[in-house]
């Protein structure tokens, strides 16, 4: 009989942890010019994790962010704009699902829509869009789901929930086993 309240408490802790973990995410969206230059500048910190992938995919040695936005999503229904002088990336979030966010993306060149895409942006899979050639370089659009900074710091300051941690490890393990 004492097991029931214990299980209920564990379930509540797990549910609250899961809610707090899901509620604190941001989407970084950037307009990036990729170029080959003799003295490449260091890659911007937002793209550090993608550096090798971008180099392998596009063959450029420098990636410069010309416009960006870091939008924290609370309802999953927000919209925002990442602007450079001539380009604008309008992102319209149309809801959250188990794997990420449903987004409508529009790339503007001044007032013209160059490209429109509907995507389901996964929390574990960045999206890179190859845009038009710009001079000797290439315009790239990059979208990445990141943990919100404040929530990230808060979670690190607090002791980890062992049940949530174990569950996440199990999910990762199963995910790694599955093709």
């Amino acid at each position, binding site marked *: 009989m004492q097991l029931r309240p214990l299980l209920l408490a564990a379930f509540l802790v797990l549910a609250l942890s899961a809610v707090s973990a899901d509620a604190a995410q941001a989407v970084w969206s950037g307009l990036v*010019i990729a*170029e080959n230059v003799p003295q490449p500048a260091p890659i911007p910190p937002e793209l550090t*994790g*993608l550096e*090798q*992938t971008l180099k*392998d*995919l596009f063959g450029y040695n420098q990636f*410069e962010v*010309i*416009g960006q936005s870091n939008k924290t999503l609370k309802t999953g229904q927000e919209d925002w704009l990442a602007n*450079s*002088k*001539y*380009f604008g990336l309008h992102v319209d979030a149309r809801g959250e699902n*188990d*794997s*990420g966010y449903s987004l409508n993306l529009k790339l503007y*060149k001044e007032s*013209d*829509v*160059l*490209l*429109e*895409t*509907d*995507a*389901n*942006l*996964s929390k*574990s*899979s*960045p*999206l*890179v*869009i*190859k*845009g*038009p*050639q*710009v*001079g*000797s*370089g290439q*315009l790239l659009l990059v979208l990445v789901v990141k943990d919100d900074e404040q929530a990230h710091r808060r979670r690190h300051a607090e002791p980890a929930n062992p049940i949530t941690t174990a569950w996440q490890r199990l999910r990762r393990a*199963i*995910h790694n*086993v*599955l093709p």
Partner: protein
Amino acid sequence: MKTFEEKWTAWLDGQLSGKELAEFEASLPDLAAAQAEKRDAQKLGAFLKEQLTTQAVSNEEFFSHQLHERIARESEARHRSTSTWWTIPRLVWSGATALALFVITTVVLMSQHQPGEQSEYLTQILQSRVDPAANPNATISIFESKTDNKVTVLWTEGLQSLPADYAAK
């Protein structure tokens, strides 16, 4: 000087010999009856001896039996006091059952994921379009990077090139 009873006992035990044996048997009034009594006494002696030996073995066995019973009782009590449901065979069976359940669950989960279906862990491009008037030869393709960070790439070709001024921040 031995009494008659002493000589009789010695004769019954076959301990008289020689002249003493002859004199004692000559002194008996009915030698045949005495001989018969001697045989009966010897039979009785042999019987008693046999019975006493049997009794001694029987006691030994009885003692041994009691000892075994006591040892069994004590070991059973000790076993009862330290025994648990988690015996080694049950542990092995429980482990095997848990492993089987894990494998079944994994197989079921894997079977729900269709081979051609894009993983929910990857970003999915639902639809994509470019302005056909401005970019009549544009093509779009989608693929996933082979690197660890699972980047989904929307690759366009044939978009109108722009001057370098457009790279301004």
